């Protein structure tokens, strides 16, 4: 099977990899680049565990082919903290007990950051609808919503 060569940027680093045409970005991240922080919960775009941003746009990595990453800028959970300094969302998730098993957490953090970049002051309802693509089975979402709202408050300096 001939493989495609892809050059792309992941969390600011130039990377190259080979992939089969049918391989998804999620598979390339996890299996070729060993960035396993992005999770697979369904493989069909229904759970959001594989949320990443591509050129700033929030997407499911399972619904994008790896070959389509050519020349793009990808952000994954591994690039969210600045060195040792956690992103405010990461800090608030720990502080608010907004994670339990943690399998949905990377995807929810990436999605929440994308929300706050567009809307620094979302309402509870806006947070809930924006995160509707991210399933969590442990928390009932209560503490996740609180953590996002609190992070937004802190990031606004309010």
């Amino acid at each position, binding site marked *: 099977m001939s493989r*495609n060569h892809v050059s792309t940027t992941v969390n600011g680093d130039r990377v190259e990899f080979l992939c*089969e*045409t*049918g391989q*998804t970005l999620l598979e390339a991240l996890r299996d070729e680049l060993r960035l396993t922080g992005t999770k697979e919960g369904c*493989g*069909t*775009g*229904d759970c*959001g565990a594989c*949320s990443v941003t*591509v050129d700033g*746009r*929030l*997407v*499911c990595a*399972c*619904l*994008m*082919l790896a*070959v*389509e990453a*050519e020349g793009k800028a990808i952000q994954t959970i591994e690039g969210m903290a600045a060195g040792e300094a956690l992103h405010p969302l990461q800090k608030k998730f720990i502080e608010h007990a907004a994670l339990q098993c943690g399998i949905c957490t990377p995807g929810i953090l990436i*999605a929440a950051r*994308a*929300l706050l970049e567009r809307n620094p002051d979302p309402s509870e309802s806006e947070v809930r*609808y*924006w995160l*509707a*693509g*991210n399933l969590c089975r442990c928390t009932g979402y209560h503490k996740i919503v609180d953590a996002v709202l609190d992070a937004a408050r802190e990031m606004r300096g309010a």
Partner: protein
Amino acid sequence: MRYEAPKTLEQAIALLAGANGQAKVLAGGTDVLIQLRSNRAAPDLLVDIKAIPEMKSIVADAGGYRVGAAVTCMELIENETFARAWPGVVDGVKYIGSVQVKGRATMGGNLCNASPAADSVPALIAAGAVAQIAGPQGRREAPVEDVVLGPGRTSLAPGELVVSFVLPRRAPHSGDAYLRFTPRTEMDIAVTGAAVNLTLDGKGVCSSARVSLGAVAARALLVPAAAAALVGTKVDEAALARLAAAASAACKPIDDKRGTKEYRIKVAGVLARRAAKIALERARGQG
């Protein structure tokens, strides 16, 4: 399986034509990748059309709009002037999947995937949108309601693809709306959908209307009888009741995991009525 990302429409058409029907167009990929994964599709060639500028642009054109078939749902939602002109079309687009899915999914893909439950299609039909189609034989146009024939089947000839959608110039006092019913608030497939597009005259009387229903037949339906219930009325309760009855009467649904026949028929009428009320408010609010 080969992957190509042509930069021009001509190249894309040539690739599709040269693949003897074993090629698949890749726009947002939110349906195609699932088909690949489940072995429901096994093409030799994927033609990614997202590098073609014409298919990625939103152009205001003589009062109307031309929306590239590969424009993502999020790009369209974020285009505020388009959303003001065609809020009902944006309603439909907003219902498609999650924010993540909308970051990739396109109206072109939503149409050509040919699901009877596609959320943007009834809204486009009600809007009177025309699909611009290109293929080995050149370009042609078709009303959106004529593109899909049934589940998974379109009227596109081999090698043809939808390039863009043209939405007409808006008359004053016009409004459109799309509503769908799903058990969950988000992340669901329409059990039934209804789109209403109407224009009022200076006295508030409905001068023209188009009504379209989704997920109640093998493809999205244009329902002239439902529209006729509104035209010539002030869209009052009696007219809305006739609209609902006509909408329900037009349904030819199936029973499946997403809903029963009876349910779809009943709710199609309810949604048509509710969508008409929203369209009416929007028309009244428009200069």
